[in-house]
Each structure stands twice: as structure tokens, then as C-alpha cells.
């Protein structure tokens, strides 16, 4: 795959825009043959990732940049989608990006857990520019589900 994504969305960190992005990616996943439930879960993961950037990375500021890149992938014949979310937040210690224990029943703190459970690959990194974070996520299409639903 070339470095250029098939789809790129540049937006500001306005929470109102998150729903448009998740709906677009859910529709794309559906068109690529992902099951309805997996596409819905993927949309949830994207929503959580963007919410984390807005709430925690930008501390609720609504005018900061978020860049979303989406590309179909096919490593070793396994179809899927790769989504990259980049921001200009302050870089954080990567070891501190962890989900909380689920046996604590309390409001909040589920976003990272949801992302990690839904996506097949998740990688947080510091952007090479020295500013901002990059979250790279992949979700593969279950071949059997694809066949049975077509």
C-alpha cells in the first residue's frame, strides 16, 4: 500500500462532527463486506478514539486539528480497513495509555478498552514532527461472515 490514504478527512475538534465521521466509516466498512455488527463496532471504536482526542488530548477545545485517514488493506489476503487518527495534542507517555480494570463499576474510562477490544490491531505513537499523537488501527473482515452474508 502506498503512503497516501484512499480517504482523508481533516476536521476541527468539534464534537458535533464526530457522528459524521463514524457514519461515513461505518458505511465504508459495510460496502467493503464487513458484517453489520462489525461495522457498527468499528464506528464505535472510531468515535471513542476521536472523543479521547477531543476530551483528553485537546481538553475540550473545539478548534484544533484532527486528521483521519482510511484505507482498505489486504495483508496476506486478509481484507480489512486501516484507520489512522492524527492530532496535534501534547505527546503523552505511551506506556500510560491503558484501559482501566473492568471490575471497577464506575462512569467513564471505557474508551481505550472498547478500542482495544473492537480493533484487531491498535498502535499509539508519537508523530515524527515532534508534536501530536498518531493512533493506527486495523480491523479485518471475517471471511466466513462475508461469504455467509452475501
Amino acid at each position, binding site marked *: 500500500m502506498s503512503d497516501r490514504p484512499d480517504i482523508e478527512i481533516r476536521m476541527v475538534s468539534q464534537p458535533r462532527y464526530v457522528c459524521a465521521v463514524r457514519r461515513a466509516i461505518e458505511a465504508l466498512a459495510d460496502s467493503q463486506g464487513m458484517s453489520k455488527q462489525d461495522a*457498527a463496532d468499528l464506528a464505535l471504536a472510531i468515535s471513542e478514539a476521536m472523543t479521547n482526542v*477531543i476530551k483528553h488530548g485537546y481538553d475540550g477545545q473545539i478548534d484544533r486539528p484532527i486528521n483521519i485517514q482510511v484505507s482498505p488493506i489486504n495483508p496476506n489476503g486478509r481484507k480489512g480497513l486501516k484507520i489512522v487518527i492524527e492530532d496535534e495534542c501534547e505527546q503523552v507517555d505511551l506506556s500510560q495509555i491503558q484501559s482501566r480494570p473492568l471490575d471497577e463499576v464506575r462512569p467513564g474510562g471505557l474508551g481505550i478498552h472498547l478500542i482495544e477490544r473492537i480493533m484487531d490491531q491498535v498502535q499509539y505513537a508519537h508523530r515524527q514532527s515532534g508534536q501530536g499523537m498518531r493512533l493506527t488501527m486495523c480491523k479485518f473482515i471475517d471471511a466466513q461472515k462475508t461469504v455467509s452474508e452475501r
Partner: protein
Amino acid sequence: MADQDTIISDHQTIEDGVVVKVEGEIDLIRSPQLRKELIELLNADLDRMVIDLSHVTFMDSSGVATLVEALQIQRRNNKKLILCGLQQKVKSIFEISRLDMVFIITEDTASAAQA
């Protein structure tokens, strides 16, 4: 979708509490309004609050956090909170976060009234 609209579209009194119907997408934008509306109702000291989610098409972790807070309020007061009618795409977030083991979740409002 407007963020100032009412999230609870309807509520009906039952013998020991209330059934509230929630509509639309419950996300970062709309969860604060849902929280406000639920807290107002919970202040009425209801023995049973049934939240009908059958018309909710999307829920993120902020929506779940709002419901967890409502559950905690009810439990502190030794009251019940029951969720019902979840579409599978909404049920999924409860399953992934294992909160389907924490909430009482029923198929519909009739079974929720008995749970």
C-alpha cells in the same frame, strides 16, 4: 442532530416507578442532556426506573457512563434501574465492557416491569 433537544421522548408511570423512552444517538454531544433529564427523574425517589432503549441507534462510552451513574444512584437508594429493548448494535457496547453483567437488561418494557 440538535444537541438541545429532549433525549427522553416519553415517560409513563407504572405501579412502582416510571418507564422512560430514550431516542436517537447517545454520544458525547447528547449524553449531558440525558444525564440532566435522568437525574431530574431520579430525584423523584422512584422504586423502579425502566429505561427503554429500543429507539436508541447508537451509544458510546459517554452514554454508558451516564447510565452507570443513574444505576449507582438507584442502588445507593436501594432502588432498581432496568434497561430494556436494546438493539444489538447498542447491546454490543455493554457486552464488550462487561456491563451486561452489571445492569438488569430485559427484552421489553413488559418484562422490565417484572424484573
